[in-house]
């Protein structure tokens, strides 16, 4: 995408030494492009964005872009984001996580952030494996697939991240792939505009580990797999479970309205201030009564 170059360049940090840490052909760079295009289209200023990540390949993303950036501990990105948002409600908080980061070590934080419905956007790169540490199986490694800690095939069943977000109470949950990049731009844009906790799961490829261990070919083969097995949500609804076997939905799974945490907490502040006024009036009256007596 030649026309994108000046745009991407505008958002990169030029005092940071490149090259980046990702393998050639990794999907995270494609996601970063989508994210920048969405931010640019929505005309957010660099100062109002806080980009927060956890640990892993996806955790290295914020360092390259010129926003307020925060690279936290493994799985805890959403907890830091919660503090930033409550302290600066006017800022736009975007949280980048990987599949292991968000649903293994950070699984508890993920479901509670969705339940709490604080206005955050969670972007989860799902490449079915722990890439940075060398290809160990993750909560999204499919049953039977190989990893460096499941060399005989994983015997655990995998999470469906987008549906997990729906069940936990996210007001917006969508899934895209790094192959369907125009759709991905749109999904991220919608998620950023959503009032409340929004989640975009992005199916990506780790050809270095997952592809190699499971003989899925190179990065291009793995992106072709995304093309051939992604089914639009509307079409998937009409398909039987047998027809959906081995395939996955892409598009918006849920888009609903609910009051966000900050709106609810504002009500708490109002009640608290009323209670304080009453208490101060009472103390004043007691004081004056005592003086008269």
């Amino acid at each position: 995408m030649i026309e994108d170059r000046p745009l991407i360049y505008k958002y990169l940090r030029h005092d940071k030494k490149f090259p980046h840490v990702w393998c050639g052909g990794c999907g995270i760079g494609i996601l970063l492009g989508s994210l920048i295009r969405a931010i640019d289209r929505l005309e957010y200023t660099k100062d109002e964005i806080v980009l927060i990540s956890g640990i892993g390949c996806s955790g290295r993303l914020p360092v390259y872009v010129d926003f307020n950036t925060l690279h936290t501990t493994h799985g805890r990105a959403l907890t830091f984001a919660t503090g930033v948002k409550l302290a600066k409600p006017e800022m736009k908080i975007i949280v980048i996580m990987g599949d292991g980061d968000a649903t293994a070590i950070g699984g508890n934080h993920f479901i509670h952030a969705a339940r709490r419905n604080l206005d955050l956007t969670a972007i989860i790169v799902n490449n079915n494996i722990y890439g940075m540490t060398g290809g160990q199986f993750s909560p999204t490694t499919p049953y039977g697939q190989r990893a460096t800690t499941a060399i005989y095939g994983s015997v655990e069943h995998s999470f469906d991240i987008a549906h997990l977000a729906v069940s936990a109470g996210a007001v917006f949950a969508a899934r895209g792939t790094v192959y369907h990049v125009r759709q991905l731009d749109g999904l991220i844009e919608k998620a950023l505009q959503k009032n409340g906790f929004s989640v975009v799961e992005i199916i990506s490829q780790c050809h270095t580990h997952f592809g190699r261990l499971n003989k899925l070919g190179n990065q291009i083969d793995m992106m072709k797999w995304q093309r051939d097995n992604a089914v639009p949500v509307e079409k998937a609804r009409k398909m039987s479970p047998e027809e959906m076997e081995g395939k996955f939905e892409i598009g918006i799974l849920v888009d609903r309205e609910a009051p966000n945490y900050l709106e609810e907490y504002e009500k708490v502040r109002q009640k608290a201030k009323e209670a304080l006024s009453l208490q101060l009036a009472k103390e004043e009256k007691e004081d004056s009564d005592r003086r008269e007596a």
Partner: protein
Amino acid sequence: MNSQQRPEPKAQLMQGNEACAEGALAAGCRFFAGYPITPASEIAERLSFRLPQEDGSFIQMEDEIASMGAVIGASLAGVKSMTATSGPGFSLMQENLGFACMAEVPCVVVNVMRGGPSTGLPTNPSQGDVMQARWGTHGDHPIIVLSPTSVRECYTLTVKAFNYSEKYRTPVILLMDEVVAHMREKVVLPAPGSLEVIDRLKPSVPPEWYLPYEDTSFGVPPMGIFGEGYRYHVTGLTHDIRGFPTLRQDEIEPFILRLFRKISIHFDDIQIVESFQTEDADLIIIAYGCTARSAHRAMVEARARGLKVGLLKLITLWPFPRRVIEPLTRAGKTLLVPEMNMGQISREVKRVNQGMTEVLAVNRIDGMMITPKEILEKIQEERK
């Protein structure tokens, strides 16, 4: 409506935990994230009621790991932040506490100690977390730990904890014990505005000149706040002066050394102790927390029996006030360290002493306070 408009403080019956919560508000704390745990819950309860009155935020998180993360996030966004917990929760906080040390994020962590290890004694008193407060998180790092002995100190030291955290950009641990936390005593809190309140230094250079982790003669770089135009990178990875991850030896060592130096060049400001009748004493009790109360009583009783006993009360436990204790060991005074653990501070005293004088200990690990009588008996046994 804010605390400045509240009437002048009167004498009141107050609990240590409540005083800690009020002290936090007086220091300007406007964010608390926590998870319920005895014997620290009253701090969260009080702040859930008080913070929204002052336009602050209280949030109950899903666990202590999350609480510590939220506290760091809020502080990076410019709000003074705190959490409170006890041993089991303190263990969970160590991961993100290390992040706060590494990224130099001001915050206050209250640990109301109960008996351990593990679930231990909910909720009998203990002073078993002295070493965990020092070395709980992994890697070499400096830390500031304060320990109150009274309800009034729960208030004033919470303010001080915030001041140190802001001034030195470091997490500060307020190490309380169950006795001090749950005890109610008569207290007159300082009038609003009478205590010094310190706020973090912010950058004054144009944003394009700002180097977030640049060394200064003070040792502490000014802190940019998210959303105020100073866009920079915050990470738990070892970083260069721009905040970017580094593996260069010539950047790693100066960074770690600065973390230590920013505390060590300010020992005079940070290390607080109180001395009671130590001038003529030939035996000095070194105590902290609730044990210092028993020690004070034991000192009075001993003096009444004609024994020359003094008390050195440690308020700052870490960095360990070596420079106060060293002269006592050189003067050949016998030192007696009563504490409710297996000897975590007496071991430090012995390290400083290096065999110069006698160091005695009274230890209790059965979930009960050390009484003045036990300390007095030890003194009398020694002075027979």
